[in-house]
């Protein structure tokens, strides 16, 4: 009786809904993923590998790694600092701070690139000054990093804040009253408590940083081999009708996405209690 009552029981609805879900997910979500790998290998493994060994492709991979290696640690430090002051202390203006941290999620990636051009582009506020001092931000690495940071910076903070809010300050306060230094307390108490959530946030931040397209496309200038990250390399090849090359590069990015998804899912299954995310969604 209870099993029957526990679900809405229209006759034949369960198989119907299940079939509909699988069909939608298959056509809408899985088919594009399969297409990437299928089209990358359309002309054989040899050409697939050859297009990944092109100097421009290797330069794009290197640039993508450099951009992520700069922006992800910076965002992790910011996330830790923001979560520490927001969750461990009580002060006025917290809501404003939280709103500002969430803001980049509601901004179009293109706008996230645009704002840096408005500041540092040829006709930007600081454009002339940069030109006089022979500094380049837009159409160069610093611009790519700034755009990536703006797009990805809420990830770590948003993962940590709800979790640290729930954990409160009791453990840290106990350590401090027992004579531990502030740094020891953070290192031995706080960090172990939040390590999985931190890893989770860094994982999502990194995936977005390496896969970001809109924001970096605005500040990149698409100079081949110099300012094209891997997603931009995909675009350049695609617009040149080099479809095997475009999908080969895309398959590297898709693999990155898949690995991220697997790690994220594994974290959610094994450490759900220590992740704020699993409570949120």
């Amino acid at each position, binding site marked *: 009786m209870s099993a029957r009552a526990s679900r809405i029981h229209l006759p034949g609805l369960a198989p119907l809904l299940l079939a509909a879900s699988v069909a939608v997910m298959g056509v809408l979500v899985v088919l594009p993923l399969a297409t990437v790998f299928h089209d990358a290998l359309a002309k054989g493994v040899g050409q697939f590998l050859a297009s990944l060994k092109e100097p421009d492709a290797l330069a794009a991979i290197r640039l993508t790694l450099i951009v992520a290696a700069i922006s992800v640690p910076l965002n992790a430090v910011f996330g830790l600092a923001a979560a520490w002051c927001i969750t461990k202390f009580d002060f006025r203006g917290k809501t404003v701070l939280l709103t500002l941290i969430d803001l980049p999620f509601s901004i179009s990636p293109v706008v996230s690139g645009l704002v840096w051009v408005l500041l540092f582009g040829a006709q930007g506020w600081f454009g002339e000054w940069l030109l006089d001092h022979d500094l380049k931000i837009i159409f160069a690495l610093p611009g790519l990093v700034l755009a990536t940071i703006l797009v990805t910076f809420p990830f770590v903070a948003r993962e940590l804040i709800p979790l640290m809010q729930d954990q409160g300050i009791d453990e840290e306060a106990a350590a401090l009253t027992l004579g531990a230094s502030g740094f020891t307390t953070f290192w031995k108490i706080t960090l172990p408590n939040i390590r999985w959530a931190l890893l989770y946030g860094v994982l999502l931040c990194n995936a977005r940083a390496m896969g970001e397209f809109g924001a970096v496309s605005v500040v990149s200038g698409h100079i081949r081999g110099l300012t094209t990250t891997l997603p931009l390399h995909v675009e350049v090849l695609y617009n040149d009708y080099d479809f095997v090359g475009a*999908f080969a590069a895309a398959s590297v990015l898709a693999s990155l996405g898949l690995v991220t998804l697997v790690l994220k899912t594994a974290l959610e299954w094994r450490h759900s209690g220590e992740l704020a995310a699993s409570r949120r969604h």
Partner: protein
Amino acid sequence: MTDRVRPIDPRGRGLWKPPLSRWRVPSILPGFGLSLGITLAYLAAIVIIPLAALAIRPWEIGLSGVWATLTDERVARALMLSFSLSLYAALLNAVLGLVIAWTLVRYEFPGRRILDALVDLPFALPTAVAGIALTAIYAPNGPLGSIAARFGIKTAYSPLGIFIALVFIGLPFVVRALQPVMQDLDKEVEEAAQTLGASDLQRIVFVVAPALAPALISGVTLAFARAVGEYGSVVFIAGNMPMKTEIAPLLIVIKLEQYDYAAAAAVGLAMLAISFGALIVLNIVQLLIARRGRR
């Protein structure tokens, strides 16, 4: 998120409140100045100053210049296209999201957890990758595009193609918003309704639907907001024909390529203003529903 912020009382659980003159409660924990300093400096450099540029620069061409930019037929049509297609895609996502979330929460079947993990794929797949893959599928010679073409329907390089891409990227928002609420749905309430003689349809309409409505609205809102600004997954499949399949973010890129910074900023600011307006309206709707539910 803000309602999770509860005051931390350093003196125990009493009703101690911070004196009005002081802006922060004293605490024995160290590092407040350092962490707040880093946070504020970073926020200023990365968010506040850049967004100030976005808010200020359009007005270099004056109110009339901004108005002329936004009412220019090409820009106006791009804005219309972006917002209307995003709305339609979010509405379809509401239906698909309900079906998928319900299936994942209420039924046990082999492969359920894999299907559940796959829901996040549109988040995990870089947008440019999704863009070229969707284009390959729905192009006139693609596996699905060719079928549609046989019926005389143009998918890629038409508004329909943009719509498909927006449905793709919006789906996870609705499913992930609904899942926890469906999980928490009190089965006893449903059972009570049943024992009191409610039909299945009555239970869905009067018991399940009101409980899900706020989460559904917030998921749809997120999907809508994401769709309005989406660029990477749309720009390949759109075809980018002026007046027909140009989306608003692409217009920003085009204005920047013409070194028309003020016009680009005007379009960006307009997008931001319209989507914040939509978010506020939807939040009010959500509040009203929540209040009605409590009565």
